């Protein structure tokens, strides 16, 4: 209740749990990929594909179990995140299966058909999603592990240096006989936990101790320490792992969270200056980065003749036009290798469902990120706020880095489109990320416990009729 002389009361509307909305959207989110699956089959083979029943049941089962667990363990969670994640994951499976139908890029040397593997990884991802929702009762528990998560994240980020580079970047850990995984995908969640815990404690020092100069708050020299350390680390990732994406994600995430924690625009200015300076400096002597930048600036000339993948992706978008060529009727196999299934899956999307479809997909990513930021606004504890901003910021940066790379806005980096692209680590880590966001939103949207009825009023009524 407000206390001063104003005559209005501001109270939150008791949020309904919206679980039925979520269920309806989930049904929708399962039907759309099934429709796409049938469409690809009709276009390629002129028959409804044989696996359609199994695929429908599998995706429906995953979505159904996830929904029931959310209903039981996070009843007030946001109703949109799970359906959007399911839809993106389902569409990703359809696009990978569709590219598996191209014999040129599904040879055994290139790994063969990848849709079954991706389905398995998605199942594991949903299992991890369920595990996080069931066992993480309160996101504030994560705050206890602030500095442990720092160590774990650093280990995860540094470990790929000791493994051989693949496709020009050292971002994989290879375990013989088991496979390989990209630790950077998991590090982005764990590093967000560290940043949230650290900034919650230190933000007053970083925000208040400053001088004003030309409209900017200049922090004291020693308060520049953390941002410089993170900057140096992200540059080292760029130099030793030659991976622009992870480096950008890591540094960008810190700048975003620093800005949100301190409300000082100067941190964004510093962040942009530092990252621009660092990127230019590294690009002058690191050959792998130079090649990427060269391909970005001159997509039509490859060093050994021919055109680059960047140019091929541009041709895909161009051939798709506004409404696209139709599912299963594009030529994105011409990009070659397994790139169309992983880094360049957006090119296939853009060619086969056109600008209209690509915009719808980007809208879905935007909506998912918006729900994350909305969760941060609604969260009542500062750690939850910062963590929600960090996780949705990491997701947003990843979408930006990949989509920007494929569409030629920035040099291409070796990251995967969350949920859509082929890649086990990515899909598992992103399901865990969505689970943590759902947990925070459940806490944030849960109605406040009703206060005990005033004994005063009750007693007087009973005693004095």
């Amino acid at each position, binding site marked *: 209740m407000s206390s001063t002389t104003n005559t209005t*009361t501001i*109270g939150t509307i008791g949020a309904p749990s919206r679980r039925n909305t979520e269920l309806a959207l989930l049904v929708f989110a399962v039907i759309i990929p099934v429709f796409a699956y049938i469409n690809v089959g009709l*276009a390629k083979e002129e028959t409804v594909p044989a696996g359609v029943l199994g695929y429908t049941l599998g995706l429906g089962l995953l979505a159904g179990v996830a929904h029931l667990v959310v209903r039981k363990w996070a009843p007030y969670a946001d109703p949109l995140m799970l359906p*959007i994640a399911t839809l993106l994951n389902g569409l990703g499976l359809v696009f990978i299966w569709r590219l598996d139908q191209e014999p040129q890029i599904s040879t055994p040397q290139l790994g063969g058909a990848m849709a079954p593997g991706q389905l398995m990884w998605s199942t594991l991802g949903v299992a991890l999603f369920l595990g996080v929702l069931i066992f993480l009762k309160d996101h504030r528990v994560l705050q206890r592990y602030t500095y442990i998560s720092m160590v774990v994240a650093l280990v995860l980020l540094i470990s790929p240096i000791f493994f051989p580079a693949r496709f020009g970047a050292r971002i994989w850990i290879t375990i013989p006989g088991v496979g390989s995984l990209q630790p950077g995908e998991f590090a982005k969640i764990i590093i967000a936990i560290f940043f949230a815990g650290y900034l919650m404690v230190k933000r007053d020092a970083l925000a208040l101790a400053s001088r004003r100069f030309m409209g900017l708050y200049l922090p004291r020299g020693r308060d520049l320490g953390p941002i410089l350390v993170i900057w140096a680390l992200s540059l080292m990732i760029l130099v030793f792992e030659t991976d622009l994406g992870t480096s950008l994600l890591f540094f960008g995430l810190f700048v975003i969270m620093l800005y949100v924690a301190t409300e000082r625009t100067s941190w964004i200015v510093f962040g942009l200056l530092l990252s621009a300076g660092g990127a230019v400096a590294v690009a002058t002597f690191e050959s792998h980065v130079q090649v990427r930048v060269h391909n970005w600036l001159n997509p039509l000339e490859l060093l050994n003749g021919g055109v680059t993948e960047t140019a091929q992706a541009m041709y895909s978008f161009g051939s798709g036009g506004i*409404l696209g060529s*139709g*599912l299963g009727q594009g030529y994105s196999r011409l990009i070659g290798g397994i790139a169309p299934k992983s880094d360049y899956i957006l090119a296939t999307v853009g060619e086969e469902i056109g600008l209209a479809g690509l915009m*719808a997909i980007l809208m879905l990513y935007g909506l998912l990120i918006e729900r994350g930021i909305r969760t941060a606004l609604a969260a009542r504890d500062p750690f939850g706020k910062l963590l929600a901003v960090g996780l949705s910021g990491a997701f947003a940066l990843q979408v930006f880095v990949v989509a920007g790379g494929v569409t030629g806005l920035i040099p291409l980096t070796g990251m995967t489109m969350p949920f859509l692209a082929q890649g086990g680590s990515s899909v598992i880590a992103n399901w865990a990320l969505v689970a943590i966001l759902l947990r925070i939103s459940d806490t944030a949207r849960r109605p406040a416990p009703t206060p005990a009825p005033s004994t005063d009023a009750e007693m007087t009524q009973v005693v004095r009729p």
Partner: protein
Amino acid sequence: MSELTLTVMRLGFLAVLWLFVIVAVQVIRSDLFGTRVTQRGAARRGAQEPRAQRQPAAPPQQQQRRQEGGRGNNRQRRGAPTKLVVSEGSLTGTTVALQGQTISLGRAHDSTIVLDDDYASSRHARIYPDRDGQWIVEDLGSTNGTYLDRTRLTTPTPIPLGAPIRIGKTVIELRK
């Protein structure tokens, strides 16, 4: 498969994809109006209704009496104070509606009334209703004491209407 079927499926797919996006945005709309602003009077009337429903078997004259009380001063007892007013000190003019909750006074940030006063302790005093709805002031072991009229409080004391309670340089009163 005929060209026509594939074209229809292609456009149909785009349509359902966008339909999903639009439905999702519609779901978000409910969040845009996340807070409700109500006039005090309306809120009070709204708050009374559930209380009346809770005891449907109450005798008619009791209900009538309760309604009278509600209309008069928002409390069951006639002549009971409805608000606490700061009449002297840096917070002069501040009022707090008395709704049966305990009001804490002091320099601590979580107090109901945060006193910015060198003579106040961090948890200085509290004002709360007893079982009969009589408001009581209690000193919480403050350094400089809480005064009701001219007397320093040693025990929880009922507050007469309009009597000044002095804490440091701040004076508060209960009013109708």
